[in-house]
């Protein structure tokens, strides 16, 4: 009836996950009770949960990423404390638990923090930058988000019911095969990634189609903002790489569930095939994450330097070059596994070549700043901090791309330091820069600058104090994933790293305080012009937050930096003197399809993990029925009458006239 599920799945003997799970459960119930009692449920349902508005979905993505960042961050804190105290002792975490923590940390940070964060920002901003009303497939967008949330939910359920994988974030066989991991941990891992991977693929298809097919009049490819270009590159990679992940996980699951022999030791299975497949997805994945961050830095650096982006076309070329080359380097993840010197040399060189377009980008940002009027607002601080940090990470990456060096450094803490260097210094700093930069656009008020700067400095300092020691212990021979160790020389560095973690935590707290303080002072921080940073691209041409239809008229683009040109033009002529008549706007109707579908996917995923077959069938039928019901709708769209459009747009225009008359004086 309940498959493998019984009371032994609840870890009554382990206080840490039980208490953590209990606290989270109580918090969720409290929030739910508050929502119901205060009568916010209809608002939440109508305005957010069933919303197909790309801006709302983008905000929910970022919210999901932020919550999961706290979860993945607490795993990181636990690991740093463990390694600081576990010198010639067992530390405070049992090995079983420690192995689950590092696996969960990696899985969560990549799939449920970095991915939703960048996808959320792309969702929020790209249609605005392209000057259009929504993404190509609004309802599908909602489905994609809710499936991602399903994956995150399943990972968190594993904290209390059952266990998580103890295999590392990529679940290498044969360790992840049934014979070595008989529990449900790997199943939690595989099904949550399988379900959220579908969501990611859907988002990728959606954004590629949006950028390629939905651009406002005059928005030629070489007039698109850099962020749209990097979004295109990143989502092309999603479309090309995520199916590989789907196939690989499917093979692993077939091995585990039906006794197939893709990756087993016996009957001719081939473990190296898993390495090849998983890294053929996993290496592009790194660029899926970092390319949007590059786009954010391009926007931020240009805006806060008051200059057009230097070398726009070389930037486009570099982006697309990275997009292509990132598919040709996956083998550098297993230099040491016997591919031979020729193969290693080719992949080593290909890996180093990626540094060339990346270097082009760095120089372009520096030259954009050169001679500009730089304003050191919080997003700009993150951008400059990124450049310093990322160069170090890039250089250690080139070092690791030398096969002989990799023979010494692979699987060491040096490697751990390297990829945290690029992922935190690149992706996370980019996400934070984008968060600070576009927050006023999403919510209509700016974030508190003082707390923002404090958060930056603590995070920046904390990052270096945490991860530079890891480079050193890596050179001293410490391997990754150690529960405890006996080498005295490593100890001081592990303690320094733990202190760095504490500083990083203060940075995170500052960021939370920043949001609370800003929400309290939102009247004082209100952005009435829609253009708080004196921006250059079209998202600043509409009000903050934008109306549901984004633009009353589709903008007509005449060059790069579309909004900057319009402002320049408007200083001479009156703003929008030659506006055509307002017209009715058709917008897609809200739909609970995404939420209901994810509800059934959660049931199905949970049932699959625990082998509850009747429930699997129920969940599958439910999801299918949801789509058929959706397909049966007669009215996909509702109409916003021209008068209402005019009323909304006139307010925005009035505010903006004030801005334009002032703009000449700044």
């Amino acid at each position, binding site marked *: 009836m309940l498959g493998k599920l019984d009371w032994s799945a609840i870890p009554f003997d382990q206080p840490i996950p039980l208490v953590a799970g209990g606290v989270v459960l109580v918090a969720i119930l409290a929030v739910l009770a508050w929502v119901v009692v205060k009568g916010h449920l209809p608002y939440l349902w109508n305005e957010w949960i069933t919303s197909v508005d790309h801006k709302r979905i983008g905000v929910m993505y970022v919210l999901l990423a932020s919550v999961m960042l706290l979860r993945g961050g607490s795993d990181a804190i636990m690991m740093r404390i463990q390694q600081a105290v576990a010198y010639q002792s067992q530390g405070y975490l049992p090995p079983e638990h420690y192995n689950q923590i590092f696996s969960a940390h990696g899985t969560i940070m990549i799939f449920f923090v970095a991915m939703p964060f960048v996808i959320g920002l792309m969702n929020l901003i790209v249609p605005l930058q392209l000057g*259009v009303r929504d993404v*190509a*497939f609004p309802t599908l967008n909602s489905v994609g988000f809710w499936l991602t949330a399903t994956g995150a939910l399943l990972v968190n359920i594993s904290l209390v019911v059952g266990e998580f994988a103890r295999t590392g974030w990529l679940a290498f066989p044969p360790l992840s095969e049934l014979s070595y991991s008989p529990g449900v941990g790997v199943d939690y891992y595989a099904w949550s990634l399988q379900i959220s991977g579908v969501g990611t*693929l859907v988002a*990728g*298809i*959606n954004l*590629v*189609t949006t950028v*390629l*097919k*939905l*651009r*406002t*009049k*005059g*928005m*030629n490819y*070489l*007039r698109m903002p850099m962020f749209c270009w990097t979004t295109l590159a990143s989502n092309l990679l999603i*479309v*090309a790489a*995520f*199916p*590989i992940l*789907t*196939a*690989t996980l*499917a*093979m692993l699951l*077939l091995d585990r569930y*039906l*006794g*197939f*022999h*893709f990756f*087993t030791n*016996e*009957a*001719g*299975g*081939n473990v190296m*095939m898993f390495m090849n*497949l998983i890294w053929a997805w996993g290496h592009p994945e790194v660029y899926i994450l970092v390319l949007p961050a590059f786009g954010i830095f391009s926007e931020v650096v240009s805006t806060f330097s008051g200059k057009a982006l230097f070398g726009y*076309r070389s930037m486009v070329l570099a982006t697309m070059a990275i997009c292509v080359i990132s598919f040709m380097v996956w083998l550098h993840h297993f230099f040491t596994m016997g591919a031979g010197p020729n193969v290693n040399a080719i992949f080593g060189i290909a890996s180093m070549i990626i540094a060339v377009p990346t270097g082009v980008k760095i120089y372009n940002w520096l030259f954009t700043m050169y001679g500009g009027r730089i304003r050191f607002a919080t997003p700009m601080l993150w951008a400059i901090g990124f450049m310093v940090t990322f160069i170090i990470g890039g250089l250690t990456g080139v070092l690791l791309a030398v096969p002989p060096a990799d023979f010494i450094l692979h699987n060491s803490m040096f490697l751990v330091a390297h990829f945290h260097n690029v992922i935190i210094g690149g992706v996370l700093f980019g996400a934070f820069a984008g968060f600070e930069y576009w927050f006023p656009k999403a919510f209509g008020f700016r974030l508190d600058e003082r707390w923002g700067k404090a958060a930056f400095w603590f995070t920046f300092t904390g990052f270096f104090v945490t991860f530079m020691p890891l480079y050193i212990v890596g050179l001293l021979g410490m391997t990754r994933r150690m529960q405890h160790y006996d080498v005295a020389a490593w100890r001081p560095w592990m303690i320094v790293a733990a202190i760095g973690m504490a500083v990083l935590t203060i940075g995170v707290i500052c960021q939370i305080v920043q949001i609370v303080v800003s929400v309290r002072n939102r009247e004082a921080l209100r952005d009435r012009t829609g253009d708080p940073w004196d921006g250059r691209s079209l998202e600043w041409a509409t009000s903050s937050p934008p109306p549901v239809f984004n633009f009353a008229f*589709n903008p007509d*683009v*005449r*060059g*790069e930096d579309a909004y900057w*040109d319009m402002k320049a033009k408007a200083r001479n002529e009156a703003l929008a003197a030659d506006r055509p008549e307002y017209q009715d706007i058709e917008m897609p109707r809200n739909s609970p399809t995404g939420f209901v579908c994810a509800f059934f996917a959660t049931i199905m995923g949970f049932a699959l993990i625990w082998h509850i077959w009747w429930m699997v069938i129920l969940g599958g039928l439910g999801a*299918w029925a949801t789509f*058929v019901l959706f*397909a*049966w709708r*007669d009215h*996909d769209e509702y109409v916003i009458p021209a008068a209402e459009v005019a009323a909304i747009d006139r307010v925005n225009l009035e505010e903006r006239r004030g801005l334009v008359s002032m703009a000449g004086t700044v």
Partner: protein
Amino acid sequence: MAMTATAGHAHADPHHIGLVIEHPGPAPKRIVTAYGFWIFLLSDIVMFSCFFAAYAVLVGQTADGPKGSEIFEPRYVAIETVCLLLSSFTCGMASIAADVRNRFWFYLSMSVTCVLGLIFLVLEFREFADLIARGYGPSRSAFLTAFFSLVGCHGLHVSAGVLWLLTMMAQVFAKGFRADILRRMTCFALFWHALDIIWVAVFSVVYLLGSGV
């Protein structure tokens, strides 16, 4: 597609000299939908190529079990192939019928497509059941694992296609040839033809090469 000389606003965009194609604005829904579905199909083909790659890696790993030439039944596979290729033709007929809004020909060609798809599935199911009954199931060897997965993945797609086909017929029955229904019909047709292309690859790589003809 509007072709305009840039002379009018060349000052705003110094890079453009001479004639450029001005972007006319967002594409119509019909094109956006089909375009997005093409991209999905490409991603699906990437997934299939993983199973093809796995098959190529594992084809020799028979673990003392049977080789391909010992278990394949060329006659069955030939009938399967004919069914699927014919169904692609009838699916094309259904698309044309939908374009000219002819209900009779639409139902007829969709029904024939459905029957041909079902015959294909029954034959494939019989092949699988027969192999498993002889002890040559997917857990016998890595070669059989890869064979069952690759061919079965295609079979699953055909099953989903049949389900979609029946839903499409019901949709046309209930809603008529509305614009959104026609868009879905375009996607379905693309899906069905793509399955055909993948089957040609399966037929060549697995059955033709495998039976050593």
